C-alpha cells in the first residue's frame, strides 16, 4: 500500500511537472508544487524500501 501511494505521487508529480514545463511556461511555483509531490513519493518509496519491503507493506 505504502509503495503504491509512493509511486502514484511520483507519477502525478512527474506528469504535472511535464505539463508545467510544456504548457504553463515553466512557472517555478507550479514546478515546485510538482517537485513536492515527487519528493514526498520518493521519501515514502525509500521508507518502504528500507523498513517495510521485507514485510510486504
Amino acid at each position, binding site marked *: 500500500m505504502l509503495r503504491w501511494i509512493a509511486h502514484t505521487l511520483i*507519477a502525478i508529480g512527474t506528469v504535472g511537472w511535464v505539463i508545467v514545463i510544456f504548457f504553463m511556461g515553466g512557472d517555478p511555483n507550479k514546478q515546485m508544487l510538482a517537485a513536492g509531490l*515527487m519528493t514526498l513519493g520518493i521519501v515514502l518509496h*525509500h521508507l518502504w524500501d528500507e523498513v517495510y519491503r521485507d514485510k510486504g507493506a
Partner: protein
Amino acid sequence: MSQAEEWQAWAKRYDIDGGVRTFESGLTVKVVLGALFIGLLMMPGSIYLQLVSGESGGGAAPWVAVILFTELARRSFTTVKRQELYILLGLAGAAVSAGGQYAGYIWEAFFIQTPQAESFEIADKIPFWVVPPRDSIALAQRSLLHPDWAWPIGIMLLNQLLGKLRYIGAGYFLFRLTADLERLPFPMAPVQAQGATALAETTGKTETWRWRVFSLGSMAGLFWGALYIGVPALTGVMMSQPIQILPIPVIDFTQSIEGFAPTGVFALTTNFVGVLHGFVMPFPVIVSQFFAAIFTQFFFNPTLYRLEILHSWHEGLDMRATGIANALDFWISFGLGKSFTFAFMGLAVAVPMLINHQRSGQKAAGERGSLQTPPGRGDFPIWLAISMWAIGMGAYVYLVHWMIPNFPIAFLLGFAFFYTPLHSYINARTFGILSRPLFDIPFIQQGVIILSRYEEIDVWFVHLPNEDYGSGTQHWRVLELTGTRFTSDIAANLITWPVLLVTGILVWHFIWKLAPIPSSQYPFVQYHWPINATNRCLWVTAMRDGNSQMLQAIRGTYVAAGFGMSLGIYGILHCILGYPSMWFYGIVAGIGSDPGMLLPTFVGAIIGRYYMIKRFGLKRWFMFNPVLAAGFSCGTGLVGMATVAIALVSKAVIVKPF
C-alpha cells in the same frame, strides 16, 4: 534490491580481504625518514606536474615510497609490517602534497594582478590577510620568502593548527558513533587496506599476482607519461615553446560542430588516464553519464538555442567562451537545481536507513550499541575528542569573525555548530554504508553570503566554517582493518607537520622564481586560471549594485526545472521501474557535461566490460583493476618526476654569457 544492497553489492566486488583485530604501532624512525625523503624528493615534481598538466602525480608518490621501502627490506632480508606500510603511504602522500598548502598564495598573487580583478574593481579591495598588495615587492620579485606574506601565512598556520584539532576530534568521534556503536560496515575500507597488505606480502617468501599486475600497470604508465608529460617537459627546457605530441589539456572541436549543433561543446581531453578510471568505475554510471552528455551537447543545447534560452552565444566561440555563455544563460541555474536533488537524495536514503538500522540493532544487542573498544587500538576518551573539536571550532569562528567583523556572526555560528555537524554525521553514515558522501548542498557558502545581503568583498576570500568530517571517517576504519594503532598515526602526522610546512614554502618559492605562473611553461594553469579568475570576479561582485551577472544568471525557473527533472528521472527510473540507482546518478551527472571529457572513461568502461571481464572473469578483473590503476599512476608519476627533475635542474642553472 534496496539501494543500500545495490551499492554494497558493487563494493563487495572489490572487497577480498577481511579485517584484523590485533593492533601494533606503525610509527618507526625508518618509516618517518623514508616518507620524508621520498616525499620531499617528489614534492617539487608534483607541484611542477600540477602546473603543467593538472595532474599532481600525488597518487603515485606514496606507492613509489612503499615499493622502494619494500625492496630495501627484501634486500636486507627483513620483513615489513603492514602497519608500517600504511603509515608510510599516508606520510609520503602528505609529504608530496604538502606544497599544496602554498598553491593558493600563488593563485592569489596572480589573481590580484589580473585585468579581470582590475576591471571588476576588486583588486584594490582584497584584504591584507589574503595576499600582499599589488605594488608589493614580494609580488614583483615572485618571492614567498618576504615579510609581506607574514599575515597570510601566519593565519594559514593558525588555521592548520585549529584544523588538526577539529578534524582529529570530530573524525574520531564520528568513527566511534558509526563503526563502534552502530557497527556500520564501511564496505570500501578493505580496498585501501589491501594496498598496504599486498605490498607487505612481497617482503615475505612468496610473491603474489599483485606484484605482476602492479608492474604491468607501471610499464603502461611509464610509456604514457613519457608521451604526455616527458616530451613537453624536456622540450620546454630547450625551446621557448614546448613540443606537445598531444595538445594539453584538450583538442577543441567546438567550432567544428557549431554548424549542426550550435551552442554544443565538444573538447576531447588528451589525458587518457581516464581509460583506467573507466576500468574501475561502475559501468552503468560511466555509460549513462556519457550518453547524457552527448544528448546535452548535440540535441539539448541546440534546442535551447532555438528557443532563445541560450541567447549569448554566437558563431566562432571556442569551448571556454561557449561554456561561459551557456553557463550564464542556463546551466548555472539548472545545475543548482540538479545538485539540490543529490542533497535531497542523501536525506531521503539516509533517514530510512537510520530507522532500519535502529530496528535491526535492537535484534542484535551485544554487538551493536556498545562503545567498548578493542584493547591496544590506541583509543582516547570521547569527551576529549568532542572538546578538541569544540575548542578548534570555537577558535576558528573567532578568527573568521576577526577577519570579517561586519559579517553577521549568526551565519558563522549556524555553519559551525549546526550545518557542519549535520553534514558530517550524514556523510559519516553514508560512508559507513555506501562508502561515498551523499549529503552536499552545492554553492551553500555562496548562497549564504548572498542571503546575508553582505556587500563587502572580503567574505569571498575567507573559508567559512563549513566542513565535512564524515568523509574522513573511513580512514579510521582502514587503520582498524590494517591493525594500526590510532595514536601512532596521529603522532606520525604531528611529527612530520613542521618539516613539511618549511619545505613546502621553500619549494614553491623556488618554482615561482623559475618562471611567472601562469606562463607558457605551465600550459595547464595558463589555460584554466584566466577562466577561474573571471568566474571568481563574477561571484565576488555578485552583491554589488544588486545587478551582478552571477545573480542575474540564477533564475528560479531554471533552478526549479533542474530540480524537477532530476527528481522525475529518479522517481520514474529507480523507484517505479526499478532500475539500479546508478543509472540515475550517471544520467544526472552527465547532463550538461562535455562528452569529450568523458570519452576516455567510456572507452575504458567498454573495454573492461566487453573484453577484460570475459578474458579474466568478473571477480579476478575487479581484483586486478585497482592494483593496475595504482601501478599506472605510479609509472606515470615516475616518468613525470624524472623529466621534471631534469627540467628543474636545467632551469636552475644560469648560463653566463662569457
